[in-house]
């Protein structure tokens, strides 16, 4: 039965109109792409942001302060442990303090007008460590990156400047017309110091674009701190070592640092509302994809139905000479499988050979993220087999309807 069905299917496909076959396979491919790409792009909007967040801010594991605590305790011991811990490639210790930055104070003439200020966090960095972890210098869009040997210079996040953040409206305060080379005043508590703007940093990660950055030395001079406990520690895992963020987190907790700071993997550090959006977008994408599957299955139904109806006489003849109904139905199922398999495989090639690398290299430019195409192998495989299954059913039903008609009526065209 299977071999006869396969034999008949092969011959039918081979003998059918090539343009029609191409069209059907093309529809299957588009259906598959619709199923994968729509939800993949929607999820990728958020995932792109999450990846940028990991690459540019959290690293694979991030340690922040426990709620109510001003600092991460035992920072130096923690750092020492991290340096010796297996699986870790880079660590960046960040010192943070809320500050007010004032610009254009030299040119302010009308004292009835509010001062040009913006509240933000200033981050004190060890530049080499931060560069190794996040490549922060690549986001300098104006001026230059900081130099560890220089003092009195500041990097300003672009979203603190009006000319970069105008599109966000009055969502947060921003400074007017600050350019590299100009001076700004940075106030923390009773301390005010003047810095020269070295450069402007622009990324889509708010924790970078909404901060100002100075060297660790300048930070400690600005802020009255007695200890060297940090506020953030970002950790990057060495690739291909088999260590996962969960391993590192677990090792840190086992080493007794669980009470010194809030240890989170990059995934855990994603705000829950973003996870909810990811789920919602994924669902929306799947609904849109399922509509495509319904359309494709109707297409296959019609194709097989027309094929079987126009061949009703030959179906009757085959039944008459002893070919079982099952064998004939199997031949139509094989034809459906052919269309779905070929269309799906072409779709897979387009997704992984073209679209995923393309969007990785040229992400979609959204204000809050670089949108990529997310197509996990497991999920994509599931969608491939879903398309295959639905197509098989859509091909079987009309075939069964025609095949079970009376043999003699079919032969005689009654």
């Amino acid at each position, binding site marked *: 039965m299977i071999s006869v069905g396969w*034999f008949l299917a092969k011959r039918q496909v081979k003998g059918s109109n090539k343009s029609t076959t191409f069209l059907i396979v093309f529809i299957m491919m588009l259906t598959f792409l619709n199923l994968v790409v729509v939800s993949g792009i929607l999820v990728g909007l958020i995932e792109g942001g999450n990846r940028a967040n990991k690459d540019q801010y959290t690293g694979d594991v991030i340690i922040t302060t426990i709620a109510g605590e001003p600092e991460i305790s035992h920072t130096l011991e923690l750092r020492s442990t991290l340096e010796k811990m297996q699986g870790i490639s880079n660590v960046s210790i960040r010192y943070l303090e809320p500050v007010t930055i004032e610009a254009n104070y030299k040119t302010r003439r009308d004292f009835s007008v509010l001062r040009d200020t913006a509240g933000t966090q200033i981050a004190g960095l060890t530049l080499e460590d931060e560069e190794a972890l996040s490549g922060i210098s690549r986001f300098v869009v104006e001026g230059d990156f900081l130099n560890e040997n220089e003092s009195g210079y500041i990097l300003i996040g672009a979203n603190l400047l009006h000319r970069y953040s105008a599109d966000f409206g009055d969502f947060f305060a921003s400074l007017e017309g600050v350019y590299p080379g100009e001076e700004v005043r940075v106030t923390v508590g009773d301390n005010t110091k003047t810095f020269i703007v070295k450069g402007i940093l622009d990324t889509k990660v708010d924790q970078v674009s909404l901060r100002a950055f100075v060297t660790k030395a300048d930070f400690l001079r600005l802020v009255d701190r007695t200890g060297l406990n940090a506020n953030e520690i970002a950790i990057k895992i060495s690739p291909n070592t088999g260590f996962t963020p969960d391993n590192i987190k677990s090792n840190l907790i086992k080493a007794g640092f669980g009470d010194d700071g809030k240890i989170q993997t990059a995934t855990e550090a994603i705000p829950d509302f973003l996870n909810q959006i990811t789920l919602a977008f994924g669902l929306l994408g799947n609904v849109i994809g399922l509509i495509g599957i319904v359309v494709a299955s109707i297409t296959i139904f019609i194709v097989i139905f027309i094929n079987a109806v126009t061949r009703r006489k030959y179906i009757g003849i*085959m039944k*008459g*000479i002893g*070919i079982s109904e099952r064998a004939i139905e199997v031949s139509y199922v094989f034809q459906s499988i052919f269309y779905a398999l070929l269309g799906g495989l072409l779709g897979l090639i387009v997704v992984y050979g073209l679209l995923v690398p393309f969007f990785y290299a040229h992400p979609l430019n959204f204000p809050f993220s670089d949108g990529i195409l997310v197509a996990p192998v497991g999920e994509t495989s599931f969608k491939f087999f879903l398309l295959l299954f639905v197509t098989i059913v859509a091909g079987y039903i009309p075939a069964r309807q025609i095949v079970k008609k009376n043999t003699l009526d079919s032969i005689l065209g009654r």
Partner: protein
Amino acid sequence: MTKNIISIKNLHKSYGTKELETPVLRGIDLEVGEGEFLGIMGKSGAGKSTLMYQIGLLDHPTSGEIILNNVNTEKLSMEERTQLRLFELGYVFQDYALIPELSASENVMIPILMQGKSFDEAKKIGQNILDKVGLSNRTHNKPSALSGGEQQRVSIARAMAHNPKILFADEPTANLDTASGHSIIELFKDLHQRGQTIVMVTHEEEYAKYCNRIIHLEDGKIVKESKQK
């Protein structure tokens, strides 16, 4: 005494609904011996083809008994009927009834494959039988590339490939020119001489004379029977 391979008792066949029933066969009793070449003749609408379809298990009689090779077909399930057609019966249709996308060889192979034989075996059997019907050099041709006579030969080859107990032929020469028609009948004669049981519907007297027994149908009844030498 020759064994009866076909035995029909009080066969009736009607079409239509109970309210508007059209009887086509009205109580046919018939026995066909093994190795017999039976011709069924009659005017158009007499019920010739209908009778053959009932005997050939392509249709269900309204009432009556059909026994083929000692098997009472009344009690057979649909699958059993299909199996009987596949293994025991062969058909030659008026319009050849070949599958257009299969070559001559593949048309012959299909029922052999269905019987469970391997592709190579089926191909070999198909080739042999096409040689016997004189089509050894046309095996790869599709039906559209064959003449009417050649298509009918392929149809005969397909019907004979599995050595059926009974060969049914419904007006096998109706769509053929005289020369082709004669060659087809000669094939049947040859098969008959080798012991094949054949039931042939025809309206042509010159071909009916090849049969060794002819029944004449009129209004769904056998009105005349003659034996030939």
